[in-house]
């Protein structure tokens, strides 16, 4: 019985996503935050959050299939 690798990955990217989106929103419009004209911290924060949430969802679904605490992932993948 081992940790599902998608749990730490999902957790890290979800935390990073929330952090970036919040930071991007808080610093919106300040000089130096958009060197290329795109509010990239905010936008990429949402992308990271979506990826993190997807990983957590997949890990949770696999745990449901095989019973907690889950293996290294779906054996068929």
């Amino acid at each position: 019985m081992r940790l599902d690798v998608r749990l730490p990955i999902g957790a890290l990217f979800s935390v990073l996503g929330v952090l970036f989106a919040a930071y991007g929103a808080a610093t919106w419009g300040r000089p130096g935050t958009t060197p290329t004209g795109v509010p990239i911290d905010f936008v990429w924060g949402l992308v990271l959050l979506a990826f993190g949430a997807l990983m957590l969802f997949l890990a949770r679904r696999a745990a449901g299939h095989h019973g907690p605490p889950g293996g290294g992932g779906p054996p068929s993948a």
Partner: protein
Amino acid sequence: MPATTLHWIDYVVMVLYFAFVVGIGVALKRSVRTSNDFFLSGRAMPAWVSGLAFLSANLGAQEVIGMGASGAKYGIATSHFYWVGAIPAMVFIALFMMPFYYGSRARSVPEYLKLRFDEKTRAVNAISFATMTVFSSGISLYAMGKLLHLLLGWSFDVSILVAGGIVLAYTFLGGLASAIYNEVLQFFLIVLGFAPLVWLGLREVGGWAGLVARLAPVSTANGFAPDAYTRSWAYMGQASHNPVGVEWFGLVMGLGFVLSFGYWCTDFLVVQRAMAANSMSAARRTPLIAAIPKMLFPFLVILPGMLALGQGLVPAKLGLGGLPLHDLHGHLVLDYDLATPMLLVHFFPAGLLGLGLTALLASFMSGMAGNVTAFNTVWTYDIYQSYVRPGAPDGHYLAMGRFATVFGVALSVLAAYVAASFNNIMDFLQLVFAFVNAPLFATFALGMFWKRATGHGAFVGLVAGTVAAAVHHGLTLPAGAVVGVKGGYFGVVATFPSELAQTFWTAIVAWTTCFVVTILVSLATAPRPAEELRGLVYGITERPEDDSTRWYQRPAVLAVIVLALTLTLNVIFF
């Protein structure tokens, strides 16, 4: 170059990353009970995990920084290192070689050589491989320390000690499983850290067409056709017509066949990831799953270098006294290694800059952990258990594996300082490794596909191939280079248009020599009975059972998809 200042959020990203990688090591510590758990992760990895780790272990500093540098130096032709120099070999190992690596139950690549040939062939491979891993992780550490010092003004000593310490913590605790889990995390971090860089960069120059337009004047200034930096095959007819300085035959045979197959099909660093898979079919799918992101990596690591060049962000190389260097023709010499890092600090604001730098750190660490876990396995199984202390209880080897992890990291740190003090020693060592590696694939190919190949043949062939590489290198010189570590030390008989051309042809000579000598010596020595070679050689081994449940999981189907996609990419960027 003024050092870039980081904000609190950049540090938060790095600290979070460090906490997660060490946390994974702590969480996996409980599952390590035997040496098999520690060195082979209990052979329990699903294919997608071992596949991404297969890719990530190879994704060291050389890849992210080096391929960005080559992108700025050679343009899109750098993608040959992927589409020619990696994918075909990855497909080959999956389809034809994995059944023997995984099926023989060997615990390492040198151990396969022992089973197939003999003790001396294993010893040569184990010792050269163990030395090589320590020095490559040392070179990687050195590159990281130097970059962080230059970019952020951080202390070289602190940077390499902290990075080395973190890699040590998670590999010591969780062994190969921890290295593999972290490699998967690092893979996603590298992709998600660099993707916005490419997106913003392309947006800034007006897409691919804009980049082509920006690189045209650079190309003509260097004496090439305007689109020589943005087409991968069109100018490969003659070495002097493309920035790489190589013609198609040397490229396909030297890089695409000898060097690529020699690395991807025999290097234990990557093969170890596939050996950790949970079934034969998963082991065979490992390199194929890795091949899909691998073929797209040029867009992630080469494009930033090209974008930096197009944006005029590649700084000049500084000589002694801090003055920009010029070549013989009076052109500025650019510091290509800074291409990707410069784009990073130029395009990323606080926050994302932390993510980009963490992705860079992740690439250094995954490469180093790959080397350290391969080193501790080969040291413990192929050197210690074979020659120093055979027959000890399993717990003894587990303890030795952990101890080897500590001294592997310590030796890497030492090697980083050696690299920092004597730059030429590292060039010299890399040269010796190239000589040792070039003939390897001939030995494996003959071993796996010709049952008549003998131990004496393999051993003499390997030595002859290595000597042939040294002789060829010693008799040739790349254009514009001086006699010394670049070649010509036995007298210059021929010159090559570029260093890469010389490298590729040296590899071709080494491989051919090893191939021919192995056959001749094998025919002159007594073969082993076929019965002893069952499971080790093609033709006298049952074909592996395909336990895949769905059509798209079958290795042959995946291989066709991978090759078709690679061909398409070559056509698009022809």
